[in-house]
């Protein structure tokens, strides 16, 4: 071992140098990989799991007139399940859940029906058109979301040109004793679904486009070559291969749509609130943080269901072939 100059880097033979180099070697061998793998977990734990546990803890507390307005123990049990009991007994919550899931499901289905042809169209146009159209799909995000909802409120209102146009065409089409003075669009589930579809459509189109764009057009030709007409080709080749895109888009629309607060508050029916409204009201108006947390936990559990089904489906899709693999 040839010793090096005193002002050089620590030599491998010296104790400090040896410790350093062992550490450096460990880091180079495993460190980067571990760090990269750990990042998403750290993210999930810090920004999802810990806040969620806090919410769960809050949902089991008791409402108090203190600040913050909840506490544990006192004359109540330390862990108070009153909120969860109310969830199943008070029809307000049950109806809110049903309304949310219904509205979100219908909006998701319409997003899919509208978004699928659009995404498919995007894959069939020339490259330059594709970029322009993709821009148009995400262009609405460049204006304020609230502004766009207000625009819809204006359109749906009783005295808007839009409403009058629909009213006039209805009156022109049907006998006169069916005539109406305006179309009651505002403050209804219809309005919620309409604005939700409008708002979330890009979240359906983009994952669909991503999965459709990857498909090999030659597969379509192969199916045609083997005797399938274009519609059959779509059902046999395009649709099954775009299933991951459908599921991803569906979840991206369904999950936020079910918990949506702004849209139902602004255009929805006040007498049948959606779940986001309930959570907000419990927190802000009733100052019942435990109950608000309980509803939030219930919503999350409801949303985790579809996610689990999705990952189960994905595992099955991946495992199907290898499971049957026989030597």
């Amino acid at each position, binding site marked *: 071992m040839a010793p090096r100059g005193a002002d050089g880097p620590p030599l491998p033979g010296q104790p400090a140098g040896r410790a350093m180099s062992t550490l450096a070697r460990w880091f180079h061998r495993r460190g980067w990989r571990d760090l990269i793998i750990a990042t998403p977990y750290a993210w999930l734990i810090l920004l999802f799991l810990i806040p969620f546990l806090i919410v769960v803890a809050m949902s089991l507390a008791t409402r108090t007139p203190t600040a913050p307005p909840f506490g544990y123990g006192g004359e109540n049990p330390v862990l108070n399940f009153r909120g969860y009991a109310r969830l199943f007994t008070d029809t307000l919550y049950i109806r809110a859940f049903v309304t949310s899931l219904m509205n979100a499901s219908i909006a998701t289905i319409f997003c899919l029906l509208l978004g699928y042809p659009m995404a498919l169209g995007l894959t069939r146009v020339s490259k330059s058109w594709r970029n322009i159209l993709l821009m148009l799909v995400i262009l609405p995000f460049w204006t304020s979301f609230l502004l766009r909802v207000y625009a819809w409120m204006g359109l749906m209102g009783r005295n808007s040109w839009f409403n009058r146009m629909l009213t006039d065409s209805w009156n022109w089409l049907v006998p006169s004793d069916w005539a109406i003075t305006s179309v009651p669009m505002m403050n209804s589930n219809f309005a919620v679904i309409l604005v939700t579809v409008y708002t979330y459509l890009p979240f359906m189109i983009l994952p669909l486009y991503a999965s459709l764009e990857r498909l090999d057009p030659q*597969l379509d*030709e*192969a199916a045609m*070559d*083997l005797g399938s007409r274009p519609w059959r080709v779509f059902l046999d080749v395009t649709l099954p*291969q775009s299933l991951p895109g459908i599921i991803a888009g569906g979840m991206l629309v369904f999950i936020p749509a079910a918990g949506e607060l702004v849209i139902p508050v602004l255009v929805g029916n006040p007498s049948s609130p959606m779940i986001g409204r309930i959570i907000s009201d419990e927190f802000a108006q009733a100052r019942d943080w435990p109950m608000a947390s309980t509803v939030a936990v219930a919503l999350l559990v409801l949303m985790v269901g579809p996610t689990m089904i999705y990952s189960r489906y994905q595992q099955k899709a991946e495992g199907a*072939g290898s499971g049957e693999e026989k030597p």
Partner: protein
Amino acid sequence: MSGEAEPFIRIENVAKSFGSFQAVKDVNLTVARGEIFSLLGGSGCGKTTLLRMLAGFEDPTAGRIFIDGQDMSGIPPWERPVHMMFQSYAIFPHMSVEKNIAYGLKHERISAADRAARVAEMLDLVQLTPFAKRKPHQISGGQRQRVALARALARQPKLLLLDEPLAALDKKLREHTQFELMSIQARTGVTFIVVTHDQEEAMTLSDRIAVMDRGEVRQVGTPTEIYEYPASRFVAGFIGAISTFPARVIRLTGDLAEVDIPAMDGTFAARATPGLTEGQEITVALRPEKVAIAKTCPDAVNVVEGQVKDLAYFGKDSLYRVTLPGGDLIAVHAVNARRGPDTARPADWDDKVWLSFEPASAIILTD
């Protein structure tokens, strides 16, 4: 077999343009039933485009295609009695091997039992029975190629189009699969049109070959015809190795032509081709294996002196490059029929040698 019988496939003055670019120009071809017919040509010469017109994915800009006497104009791909094996194989990635093969049978009105039997038969034909349940990503490239073949054959097409069927396979597998393809064709009797850019593959597989260049068919013939009697310098150069020399016809006597080859500094006898005139400027082409090399002057009609510039020893044979009196090089192929050390070779580096060739071996090209 009567020569007047309607050919199975007739391609009549077919042309295809993409915008102003002519990918296929005025092609006329006929293919007989049960034939293995190759379209051979370099990349981009329009082979795939011609095949896609047969399959119905492209409409000819001009001309007509008849399959089994039926005009194919306006008939969509799903109604043609033709199946195609794509260059990329185009196997459905979301279906098992078995489902891929069964796909075309969906449209046939046959019972489920018949369908299963047919799939089993196809799996057996391409020796994939143990892999029936696998997904395409779980099998090798060679196996995928066989899935594509089985899928295309399952519906018993009258005509199978194969676009570079072996190009994606490695050399050893390719050679093996060539013979497999031929044996499958013989067993099924289906007419094959094979696209390839590999001349050896075309020679091995085909009953007849059409050599294509920039959208045109330059020559159609059996492998022997194409190799031994090329019609143009392009075909001669495309198939196998060849040395070409500009020459001029001096005199025509019977079926022999006396030609002046400046590169060889002399006049030589060559088998005349029809339509040759005295004084005509021509090209004389010689295949390396048709030229004999010796260290002593042989007793032959056409002899030329030269000096060995290069030699490559391959064991069973050697390739020499010999400098001719005019300075040009000629390739000569000699079989190493006698066993011995280096000194036993017909010639060595820088040796002065005599080359000779038969009049019939000299190919006269006017195009």
